[in-house]
């Protein structure tokens, strides 16, 4: 809650409301007293402690609405960019240069108030918990952490017991990285061995005995044809798009390990890192994996050209950059995996750019290193991107990562 309110404090300061440390502490105390369950109470608690003039109230209300608003689920069907009222597609060349940061934080239209913690996305998540099928644009599947799972993990390793959420707060250390890599490799190995080999019917190959009876039923066995099968030869391609900004720095280490393991097993994998622009690090990661003594992740990140680690993360700009670059992922067999929290620092999310990327890929999986309750809150634009994603997975620890890998492998085959 403190971190969330701290971000709200920044929002208030941008609105011109100066808050002293004493008032800030009082606001925290007040918020703790009233809790988060009741939106009106929570708003009153913050306004009573942070607003000191009637003239500030409107600015406070605007900031509160913007920051604590319920995320909207866009009912956009299909994968292409939606057309506006005039029938034109929003995007570049229509009065606004894409990828450029707005000079002022974008003002969002009025949102209908909803109780805190029960936004639209949260309702979708609840539907998932209840076993309902998600229908939210392209999104069909949300995979969440199971309650109490973290406490019951069988693995004795300290790293595995530590939620990723906490790991994101620390700087990576060498031993931690090594432990993570080992753990990720175990997960992927287990899944790889567990997964059945994909085969398909073919004019030549070995007999497909399981289909003989079913095929014969259609024609009563006259004429009898022996179905044949052979292993799939086309190699699926996995493109990992990893947010390595400060907020997800530690999780990014884990995701990089994941990328490395995909590379090790001979998949056609590309690893792209981004903060506000994308950078292809596939050769670097491959070299890093091949090295006898691996440098820490931080050292790997530091050596990537075109990656500004000090920049605030800007998903819209990064997606747009990727859309226009040669590394743009394409293909029916391509699985785009985005690893990040979707927090875009209030920069324009440019979801149309992401929608175009998603449209050209066979499947899109988004691994979110953040609690599902926080998706779409504050500066998170996740609710804008999720309609263009096939599956979203809550990845806060290794078990979450395992579920994420399972989702990827389901689509890779």
């Amino acid at each position: 809650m403190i971190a969330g309110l701290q971000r709200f404090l920044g929002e208030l300061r941008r609105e011109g409301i100066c808050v002293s440390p004493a008032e800030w502490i009082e606001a925290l105390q007040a918020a703790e007293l009233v809790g988060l369950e009741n939106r009106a109470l929570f708003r009153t608690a913050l306004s009573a402690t942070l607003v000191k003039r009637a003239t500030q109230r409107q600015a406070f209300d605007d900031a509160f609405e913007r920051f604590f608003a319920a995320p909207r689920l866009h009912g956009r069907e299909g994968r292409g960019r939606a057309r506006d009222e005039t029938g034109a597609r929003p995007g570049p060349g229509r009065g606004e240069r894409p990828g450029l940061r707005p000079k002022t934080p974008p003002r969002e239209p009025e949102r209908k108030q909803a109780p805190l913690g029960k936004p639209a996305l949260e309702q979708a998540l609840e539907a998932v918990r209840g076993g309902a099928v998600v229908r939210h644009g392209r999104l069909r599947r949300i995979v969440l952490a199971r309650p109490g799972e973290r406490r019951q993990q069988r693995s004795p390793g300290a790293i595995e017991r530590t939620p990723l959420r906490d790991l994101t707060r620390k700087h990576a250390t060498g031993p931690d990285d090594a432990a993570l890599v080992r753990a990720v490799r175990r997960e992927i190995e287990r899944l790889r061995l567990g997964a059945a080999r994909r085969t398909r019917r073919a004019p030549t190959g070995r007999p497909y005995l399981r289909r003989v009876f079913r095929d014969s039923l259609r024609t009563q066995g006259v004429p009898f044809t022996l179905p044949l099968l052979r292993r799939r030869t086309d190699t699926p391609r996995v493109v990992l798009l990893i947010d390595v900004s400060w907020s997800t720095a530690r999780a990014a280490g884990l995701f990089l390990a994941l990328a490395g393991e995909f590379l090790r097993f001979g998949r056609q994998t590309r690893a792209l890192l981004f903060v506000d622009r994308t950078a292809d690090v596939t050769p670097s990661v491959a070299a890093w994996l091949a090295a006898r003594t691996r440098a820490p992740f931080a050292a790997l990140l530091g050596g990537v050209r075109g990656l500004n680690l000090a920049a605030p993360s800007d998903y819209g700009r990064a997606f747009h950059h990727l859309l226009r670059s040669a590394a743009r992922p394409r293909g029916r067999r391509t699985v785009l995996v985005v690893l990040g929290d979707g927090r875009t620092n209030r920069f324009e999310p440019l979801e149309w750019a992401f929608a175009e990327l998603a449209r050209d890929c066979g499947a899109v999986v988004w691994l979110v290193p953040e609690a599902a309750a926080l998706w779409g809150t504050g500066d998170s634009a996740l609710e804008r991107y999720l309609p263009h994603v096939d599956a979203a997975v809550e990845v806060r620890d290794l078990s979450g990562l395992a579920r994420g890998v399972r989702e990827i492998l389901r689509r890779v085959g």
Partner: protein
Amino acid sequence: MQGRPKIDAAAIRAAFLEHGFVTTGEVATTLYLADALGKPVLLEGPPGVGKTEIGKLWARFHEGELIRLQCYEGLDEAKALYEWAYGKQMLYVQLLREKMAELLGDVPDLATAVRRLGGQADAFFSREFLLARPLLRAILAQGPVVLLVDEVDRADEEFEAFLLEVLSDYQVSIPELGTIRATARPRVILTSNDSRDLSDALRRRCLYLYVDYPSFEEELAIVESRVPGLSRTLAERVVRFAQSLRKAELRKQPGIAEVIDWALALVTLGADGLAPETLRQTLGALVKNREDLERVLADLPRPRA
């Protein structure tokens, strides 16, 4: 208020409603937070929206004494904090003249007399001769007490600065007696009509709430609860008329108290509607400024000849 209710925003709201005071969740929550955080509350808003009433009901809610300090231009420490009972001191001096003569009978010179009286003079600057004014009374109070500093915007800036010490530490310094600290921290409510901008320092020490005119529904509920004999239709008309007057740029907008007075006047006259003649007879209860009254009456339809 029978029994001490559990203090939370809902309980405060319910208790206020018991006394016919319809309040918003914002007011109740702010009072609850003030209680929990031990902070004064600054209620700002136009006159007649019930800020003072909130202070009074807050005292009743806590079954405590209400100590009210009405601010005005020229209010100083002597009238707000304490002063020495000069008359009482003089009376005691007269009564104790013989005793003093005994004390000073064998004194050879004036210097010796002053030295001897020096030890005795403190008796005249003890709590016996101290006239505690509202602020000091609130600090000295042993039981629950609500200090209502009403219309603080009317007081001078010097007094506002003086209030800071009281609101920060709940203590006052009296040179003859030293520093007096509150044994039980008083609950403090400051009200302001926003006629003058209060200092940031004072605002920072308080929880702030702007109490605006109520919405139509809220005001209707208030009128119905305070004026039982009023029909629903008439109550709606009364409130709608009052709200439309507030939108007009009158010199003095009608507050809730005026609306209630007007509704009571209508009930007393047995009015069943807002006919122009009825309005002419009763509008004085609602509009309290001559120019405003003339403006409103001029807009009323003329009676047919």
